[in-house]
């Protein structure tokens, strides 16, 4: 057996975007004898993340610059060396190279488009994204900035300039949009229809759009805002444009807004705007927050993504079926099977879906340990957004490759106190070609292993997508169910089932008490005669106890009395 090593090489003066590099890394990791692969641009931050992942090979920090591609591989020595040898090729020509026309610069691409360019989709390194976006704006394009790690000052300046020019910047950190029926970034195949979606959340937008499709509704437009647009510093700049655009859009009959947090000023601003919109608005704002106030301005505030889809459907059409109802009988059954002291472990690909699930779980289980702002919480229950930076530097984003998610699920099933495992599957353009194909075997093996140890666990999940997506939702659902997972229609339902399955048991069903069945007899009033008087005034027969503290409030005597009672 060959020795396990970590080695690497530096491809100097080369640049590829992070998604590109992730796919390259995936290609290498799939090889036999390879444990871990990290292919990143040599920025200090990326090197730190390599180090955290145990992949920072000797000399990397000293030699790598942000303009170099750093390739780090761990595994059996022979396999590692072979991978490193192939790295330049793989990085240059990973599987599925683009079919599009290719240029060295934006200017060149714009010139070739010859005035027909309307939108730029920017996914370069965050440091450079703002200037590329700015150039596109100045050239008269709207811009979608997929990149994250853009300075907030740059974002503010960009959006101010966009407003001046009558243009829209979607992003930074905007992963999803659908404009004029075209999916941008990670997006699902959904019919065109009357609901306009505006979202500061990628998977949130995907979930609402696919749930609308599930209700026979369609999406007119889906505008992404970027993860930070609704914070006070950015002030909802893109939100303002997006709402104006959708309000004026003749095809949009209802607007659905999806977000995870808002600044105070942004919320107040939004409330004012809601009052001025002609188009009815449904707001789904996950996480904790005082968004109910929007209802006072006439918006419908939904507490789950599915409720948003239902509400929007209702506003368009009156028809809302199916209603979101969780089968609590199933949850109770699981709770009985699992017994006391079992833990819930959620592992998510989509950040918004993770947040929604966390909202539900925390409501029933108390604070849950999570990288969505609860790392210090002391709880047996955990919920991880695997799409967070921490997990995606030397591993691909789980939507692109669910391998890490699968490993997490298997590990969770291997723990003795696990009662419920909860996760999401996000399909559509940009996602892995067959997530269930990766996840289902891990689930099946995990459950089998647990079974051999005499343990049971609930595996609950939902699939965010449509049958029109390349992966086909129905097929994904089938594979997961066959592996032993319980697939729920929506993420919130899956979270509810999983949480209830491990929550404190409900009290035994009470026999119908006599309380309401017998007429009001004499009321014995103990304490303030004020109440006795009020009862007497109503003609009620009341007997009053002129109470005094036992033993005049003497604690020692009272304890003695209690022991002799």
């Amino acid at each position, binding site marked *: 057996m060959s020795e396990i090593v970590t080695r690497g090489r530096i491809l100097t003066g080369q640049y590829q975007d992070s998604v590109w590099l992730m796919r390259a890394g995936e290609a290498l990791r799939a090889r036999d004898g390879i444990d871990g692969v990290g292919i990143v641009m040599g920025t200090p931050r990326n090197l730190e993340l390599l180090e955290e992942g145990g992949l920072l090979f000797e000399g990397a920090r000293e030699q790598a610059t942000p303009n170099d591609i750093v390739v780090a591989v761990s595994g059996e020595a022979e396999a590692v060396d072979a991978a490193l040898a192939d790295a330049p090729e793989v990085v240059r020509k990973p599987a599925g190279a683009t079919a599009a026309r290719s240029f060295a610069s934006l200017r060149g691409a714009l010139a070739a488009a010859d005035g027909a360019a309307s939108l730029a989709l920017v996914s370069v390194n965050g440091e450079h994204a703002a200037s590329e976006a700015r150039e596109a704006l100045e050239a008269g394009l709207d811009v979608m900035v997929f990149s994250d790690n853009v300075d907030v000052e740059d974002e503010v300046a960009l959006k101010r300039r966009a407003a001046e020019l009558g243009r829209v910047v979607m992003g930074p950190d905007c992963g999803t949009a659908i404009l004029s029926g075209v999916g941008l970034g990670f997006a699902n195949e959904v019919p065109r229809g009357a609901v306009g979606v505006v979202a500061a959340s990628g998977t949130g937008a995907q979930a609402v759009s696919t749930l609308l499709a599930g209700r026979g509704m369609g999406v007119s437009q889906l505008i992404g805002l970027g993860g930070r647009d609704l914070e006070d510093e950015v002030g909802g700049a893109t939100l303002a444009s997006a709402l104006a655009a959708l309000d004026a859009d003749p095809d949009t009959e209802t607007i659905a807004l999806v977000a995870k947090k808002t600044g105070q000023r942004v919320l107040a601003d939004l409330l004012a705007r809601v009052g001025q919109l002609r188009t009815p608005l449904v707001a789904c704002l996950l996480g904790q927050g005082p968004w109910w106030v929007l209802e006072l301005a006439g918006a419908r505030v939904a507490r789950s993504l599915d409720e948003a889809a239902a509400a929007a459907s209702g506003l368009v059409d009156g028809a809302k079926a199916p209603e979101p109802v969780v089968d609590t009988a199933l949850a109770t059954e699981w709770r009985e099977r699992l017994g006391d002291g079992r833990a819930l472990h959620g592992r998510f690909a989509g950040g918004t879906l993770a947040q929604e699930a966390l909202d539900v779980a925390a409501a029933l289980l108390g604070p849950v340990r999570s990288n969505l702002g609860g790392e210090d919480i002391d709880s047996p229950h955990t919920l991880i957004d695997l799409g967070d930076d921490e997990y995606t530097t030397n591993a691909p984003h789980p939507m692109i490759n669910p391998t890490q998610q699968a490993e997490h699920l298997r590990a969770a099933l291997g723990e003795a106190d696990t009662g419920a495992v909860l996760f999401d599957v996000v399909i559509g353009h940009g996602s892995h070609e067959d997530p269930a194909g990766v996840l289902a075997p891990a689930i099946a093996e995990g459950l089998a292993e647990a079974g051999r140890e005499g343990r049971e666990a609930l595996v609950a999940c939902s699939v965010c997508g449509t049958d029109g997506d390349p992966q086909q939702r129905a097929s994904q659902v089938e594979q997961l169910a066959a592996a032993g997972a319980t697939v729920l229609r929506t993420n919130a339902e899956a979270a509810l089932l999983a949480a209830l399955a491990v929550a404190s048991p409900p009290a035994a069903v009470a026999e119908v008490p006599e309380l309401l069945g017998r007429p009001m007899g004499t009321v014995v009033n103990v304490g303030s005669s004020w109440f006795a008087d009020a009862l007497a005034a109503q003609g009620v027969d009341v007997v009053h106890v002129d109470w005094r503290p036992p033993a005049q409030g003497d604690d020692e005597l009272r304890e*003695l009395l209690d022991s*002799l*009672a």
Partner: protein
Amino acid sequence: MTTTAGQRIDQANAEVVRRLTEPDVRWVGVGRAIDHVPGMRPNLVLHSGPPIEWDDMCPLQRESVLGAVLFEGLATTRDEAVTLLDRGEIELDPCHEHSAVGAMTGVTSASMGMLIVENAEFGNRAYCKVVERQLQFGQHSEEIFANLLWLAEDLGPALDEALGAIGGISLMPLIAKALHMGDECHNRNVAATALVEQAIAPALAEAAGPGRLPRMLRYFQDIDQCFLGLAMATGKALTEPATAVDGSSVVTTMARNGVEFGIKVSGLGDRWFTGPAQPIDGAFLPGYDDSQATRDIGDSTITETVGLGGMVAANALTAGAIGGAGAQQVIDRTRDNMELSAGRSKAFTIPVLDFEGGGVGIDVRQVVKLDMPPMLLTGIGGNRPPFGRIGAGQVLPPMDPFVAALRALGESLS
């Protein structure tokens, strides 16, 4: 929720209540203390309340004791009597230690006439000095002594003979009847006195003969409270077998000597628990006020101990008025006393409360929990010459003995 200790107490209490309510007590005779009272001796003077030294006695009780010493001829002058007592040559014991009880100062000596009652179930006897309303209030004189002698040597034997002839008088049914006639048998005994006189008169007439009968009947007339002696003796006869029921929290004795108020609790046997005797809140005869009043004194609270007196105060609303209380207050007080009780009487019922049984068996747990000792009505004696009865009123016992007894009970059960 009942603890195991609590269950044990409740069970013991149930037995004590049974012993206090079910047996009949019969008036079986009258005789001299020296001839009947257990442990009586020529130089022994009994007094009311818990044990107390001569030096510590209140003036009223001291005066009565002096009177008794003189009555017995143990001394011929007051000073002599004082000297004997100072030197400890006269023995002093609580009546209670000799199966006896005494009203007010309770002073009882060898030659005095005693009412004799008998517990029909357990067979034990109890004694109470024939009520004379003079020496018991600290008054003594040759005339008073002559009366005491007449009680012991004339009335006493005549009553004894009459009782012998009729086989004694059953007292519990008589008391029950009196309770429906305006008596509570502690402060108000007029109906009971009339009933017992009624019961004994024919036989007494036989025993006394036409020459002596009028003065004897006048006794009942002059001292219409005289049934108190029988009521108290009844209480003593019922409580003695109820003492020392293991684990019971029921009070079996309440007694005062003008200085201390003392109780005994069944589960704690013969131990006294005491606290300071309280001043009486009452109405005074003209010319008197509470500065001249002796504090709470007498064994008559043996009546409350067996469910009479304050426990059925609502049957004697006029007696309650003595304390300045209105009818509703008296009824409320009666209800309060029920809340202190471990059980209820079946024989002693209260018409105005829809014939509910009166409370029987004061539970120290309840007293402490509710911070509410039983409210009592009592006569008031003077604290200086000429002593005597100066008024009547209501009094609340101190909490200390009840708290101390509860603690002791807690310890004994743990």
